[in-house]
């Protein structure tokens, strides 16, 4: 059909349509002029027009129901990993929640799936980020994440604790709990929220139906579905979008929403404080502060923003007259409860309790009949005032909390990635963890440069705060130490150095030169030196710190274990694997003892595995890394960068075994995790990409490898400058790609830069210089520059022999290469010594068809021919042929 014909059909259709039915046929017969097909076409349209029952006459809602909806109580397709589905327990915009059972353990879990994951990356990202949010929240009062994976059709799912319980308010009513019992229950809710905050997660949807009380009387906090939004970060704009779009009242239960949420303004930890205030109000009075039930959304927003709630005491009294169980509280007590509740619910977020901790403190003051802190001056929301007023020793963290929170209270979601990274690194001790949290609660409203720079800005502000704390040198010193370590983790060595020295000075002034606190500073500075490649100084300082700790602390104290582990790490960095193994084993023993820190233990075991790896004992390294992977999954959840590190280590072992396909699997998993955590253009992601690139080279996929590596190199140079081991690492692999492509000049340039960087960073003795030299040796061999090849390869052999061991894999490879350089110069006896030594090293630890072994066999056959020993020559020739056949 063409346009003209269609126009004709329509013309006739419209003219006939208005005629009575019985006249239509005769009209058409006349009009169509015996054109049967035209008549049939028009008539068919008239038929349809009269019936009105096609898809287009149906409501889009019905259509949608059948296409994206459907009922979901049928049997699901597959088991989810080890979980067998029992039934559906919930359904939302994102997906479904099933009740499932883990058959081998008999435990029940809730499984959440993302429906139609194909639809859009932002939905997948939001789903993934809820999972990421939950992963580190390992707390008895928070329903925890167990497992996550996806179905074969790509549907992602995760399994979490299934909580059978009653909403908080219903539980209190049903059990007719007293005010003080209600407050105690409320405190455990606060504890869970506080824990989430300490992991930089704001819940944003706290309400009784998200807080269940189990039959044993313990609470469980659920549903971080909105909280996850803060974690989502695929770019600054998108974050702003998501936040504005998702934080509006629409997704919240208005009754518990704070004014800033109602407005769609930025939220902070005080947003959760507000919702807790409403919950407290309801627990005290059995009523909500505002009756929003018959209001339009706009009216509700206005009430939340402008109306003051009735005092709980009044509300409770009127509830009482409504027949609610009488609770005898005389008026001073109710006055306290009024202040408590209304301070938590203050419309101005800066005048609420500055943290859940502060709120809990006042609840406990109330329970203990002590005066409330909130009485002093509503909330102490100004730092200066607070610090001036509080001369009494308060633990360091709580002052910093108030100080930094007081400055600015907006939690900036844009910081999420940098914050995650810093938190992950800094979460080693509770103090640091707390500190970082406080740091990131201070936010910076102004749009600024890259996220990490903003973190630095916050840290700098933290330093200013610390410097102002002259009145409390003890706390100041601790802060300096903490800040110094955070700067160290962030690679800001200069700032780290000056702060750690300030901490050391303060501690010495306070306690003299020989004290446990001084010891901690020494270890911290020692570890910094190790990353600054001042290894001798590093070892000296850490040893000194360790001895001092042992003197002042019990042998099983976590600080002693940590210092021991630090020494092991430094020894490892020095290439002293034998001693490192001993020291690290000792640290692991201390940390495995009851009361030892599991996270510290996992870190120590990782270093142990690394030592085994560098010493060439891959079996031992593999076993340890697998154990650490399990531990870390328990400790941090499946999406944490530690998991990526473990996977990278496991991949490296597979590569040593030449199982490159397996290595690729590990490397890709690691890259996915890293990228999800840190984002794309991040040095950590670049490092993971470099490692994958390396494996792809081994698999001969050079194009893929090169594009990954180029990208990684530019990210690393951007972040770390031109002279940094991370840059060298990317260069090393780019050089290999160039080499394999026969672009020898390019390869030489890459390897030379790599060598220079390592010399500059690590001094002369590091084995990595040997790696660069060995690579350069290959370039020289390819260019047939045999004397030059001999020189660099000899130096490589020496570096490896000293820094690693004479029997290390790398030493063996370098000797085989050196043997070839000598053979090509027809120096058969010299060549025999090197090739044979290399051959022996490798044949004891490699697969017999190893590439390098074959090179050695080929060369040895030629060498023995040259030496006039045809029997031996034949022997290696036969071996070579046999190996090549495989």
């Amino acid at each position, binding site marked *: 059909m063409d346009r003209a014909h269609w126009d004709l059909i329509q013309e006739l259709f419209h003219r006939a349509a208005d005629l009575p039915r019985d006249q239509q046929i005769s009209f058409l017969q006349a009009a169509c002029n015996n054109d049967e097909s035209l008549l049939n076409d028009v008539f068919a349209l008239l038929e349809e027009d009269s019936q009105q029952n*096609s898809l*287009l006459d149906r409501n*889009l809602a019905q*259509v949608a129901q059948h*296409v994206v909806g459907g009922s979901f109580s049928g049997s699901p397709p597959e088991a989810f990993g080890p979980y067998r589905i029992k039934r559906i327990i919930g359904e939302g915009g994102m997906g479904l929640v099933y009740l499932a059972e883990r058959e081998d353990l008999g435990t029940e879990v809730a499984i959440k799936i993302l429906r139609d994951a194909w639809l859009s990356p932002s939905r997948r990202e939001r789903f993934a980020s809820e999972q990421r949010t939950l992963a580190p929240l390992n707390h008895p009062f928070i329903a925890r994440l167990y497992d996550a994976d996806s179905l*074969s059709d790509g*549907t992602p799912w995760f399994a979490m604790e299934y909580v059978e319980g009653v909403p908080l308010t219903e539980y209190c009513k049903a059990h007719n709990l007293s005010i003080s019992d209600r407050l105690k229950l409320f405190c455990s809710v606060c504890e869970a929220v506080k824990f989430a905050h300490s992991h930089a997660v704001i819940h944003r949807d706290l309400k009784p139906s998200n807080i269940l009380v189990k039959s044993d009387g313990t609470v469980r906090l659920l549903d971080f579905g909105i909280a996850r939004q803060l974690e989502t970060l695929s770019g600054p704009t998108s974050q*702003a979008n998501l936040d504005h779009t998702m934080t509006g009242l629409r997704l919240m239960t208005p009754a518990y929403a704070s004014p800033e949420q109602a407005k769609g303004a930025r939220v902070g930890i005080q947003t959760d404080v507000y919702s807790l205030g409403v919950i407290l109000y309801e627990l005290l009075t059995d009523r909500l502060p505002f009756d929003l039930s018959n209001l339009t959304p706009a009216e509700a927003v206005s009430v939340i923003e402008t109306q003051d709630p009735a005092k709980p005491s009044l509300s409770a009294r009127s509830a009482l007259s409504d027949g609610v169980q009488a609770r005898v509280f005389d008026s001073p007590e109710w006055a306290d409860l009024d202040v408590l509740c209304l301070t938590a619910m203050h419309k101005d977020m800066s005048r609420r309790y500055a943290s859940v901790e502060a709120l809990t403190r006042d609840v406990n003051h109330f329970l203990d009949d002590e005066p409330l802190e909130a009485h002093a001056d509503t909330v102490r929301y100004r730092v200066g005032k607070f610090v001036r007023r509080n001369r009494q020793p308060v633990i360091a963290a709580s002052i910093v909390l108030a100080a930094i929170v007081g400055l600015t209270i907006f939690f900036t979601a844009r910081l999420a990635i940098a914050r995650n990274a810093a938190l992950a690194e800094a979460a080693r001790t509770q103090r640091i963890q707390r500190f970082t949290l406080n740091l990131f609660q201070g936010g910076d409203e102004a749009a600024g440069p890259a996220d990490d720079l903003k973190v630095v800005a916050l840290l700098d502000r933290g330093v200013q705060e610390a410097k102002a704390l002259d009145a409390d040198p003890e706390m100041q010193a601790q802060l300096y130490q903490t800040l110094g370590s955070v700067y160290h983790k962030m690679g800001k060595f200069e700032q780290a150095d000056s702060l750690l020295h300030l901490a050391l000075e303060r501690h010495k002034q306070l306690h003299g030169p020989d004290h446990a606190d001084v010891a901690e500073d020494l270890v911290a500075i020692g570890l910094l030196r190790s990353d600054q490649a001042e290894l001798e100084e590093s070892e000296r300082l850490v040893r000194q710190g360790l001895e001092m700790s042992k003197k002042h602390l019990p042998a099983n104290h976590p600080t002693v274990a940590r210092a021991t582990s630090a020494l092991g790490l430094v020894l490892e960095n020095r290439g002293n694997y034998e001693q490192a193994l001993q020291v690290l084993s000792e640290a692991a023993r201390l940390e495995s003892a009851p009361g030892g820190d599991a996270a510290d233990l996992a870190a120590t075991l990782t270093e142990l595995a690394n030592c085994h790896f560098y010493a060439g004992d891959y079996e031992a390294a593999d076993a340890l890394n697998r154990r650490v992977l399990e531990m870390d999954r328990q400790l941090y959840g499946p999406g944490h960068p530690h998991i990526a590190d473990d996977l990278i280590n496991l991949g490296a072992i597979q590569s040593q075994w030449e199982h490159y396909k397996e290595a690729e699997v590990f490397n890709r998993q690691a890259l996915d995790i890293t990228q999800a955590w840190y984002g794309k253009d991040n040095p950590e992601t670049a490092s993971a990409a470099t490692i994958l690139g390396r494996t792809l080279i081994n698999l001969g996929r050079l194009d893929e490898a090169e594009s990954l590596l180029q990208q990684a190199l530019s990210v690393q140079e951007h972040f770390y400058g031109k002279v940094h081991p991370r840059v060298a690492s990317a260069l090393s692999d780019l050089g290999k790609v160039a080499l394999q492509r026969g672009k020898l000049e390019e390869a030489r340039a890459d390897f030379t830069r790599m060598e220079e960087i390592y010399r500059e960073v690590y001094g002369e003795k590091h084995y990595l210089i040997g790696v660069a030299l060995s690579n350069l040796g290959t370039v020289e061999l390819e260019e047939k520059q045999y004397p030059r090849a001999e020189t660099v390869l000899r130096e490589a052999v020496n570096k490896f022999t000293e820094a690693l061991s004479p029997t290390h894999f790398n030493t063996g490879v370098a000797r085989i290469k050196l043997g070839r350089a000598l053979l090509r110069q027809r120096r058969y006896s010299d060549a025999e010594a090197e090739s044979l030594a290399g051959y022996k090293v490798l044949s004891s630890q490699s697969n017999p068809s190893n590439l390098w072994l074959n090179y050695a066999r080929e060369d040895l056959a030629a060498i023995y021919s040259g030496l006039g020993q045809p029997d031996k020559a034949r022997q290696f020739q036969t071996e070579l042929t046999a190996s090549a056949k495989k």
Partner: protein
Amino acid sequence: MASQNFSAGSGSERLAIDGHQDRHALDQLFSITYEELRRLASTVRRGDPSATLNPTALVNEVWLKLSHSGPPVASSQLHFKRIAARAMRQLLVEAARRRGANKRGGVAAYTPVTLDETIMAAATQQDVLALDRALEELARLHPRQALMVESRFFGGLDIPETAALLDISEATVLRDWRAAKAWLARELKREH
């Protein structure tokens, strides 16, 4: 008028309606449209008597949510509705296609409860795919009519809005709609 820039018609064309559209904004449009659709579907299923949501309300809802956020996905509400209609169409077609594929591949994640529902759902999915194909054919014959059907059926535009969008009189909209609807209904039957 903004609509003049649109390439009307072809259903297989991805949502590249404006060259300079922010990809992320479109992604969000998709997500939110989808979630609204699901909400719509579930109110129908529950037989919720207060469920007043229709495509018009749905698209308005999506508009409200998106208009507060970041770079504008569209220059006006009408422009937006046009884009949303396209998004809705693509979404339903893609969902129908995948549901169908899932059944064949045996990895269907979701199974309706009753036989009736199964048949209805399968028929609707087929219909949506057939409508998509028929709309493409219509776009070849008469692009304006195809755009009109898409906007009205998938985007819930009312007569005056459609007239404004297409820059034609309301009477023309009514005429075109009637003819196009009858023609599409017949095409749908032919496919069965």
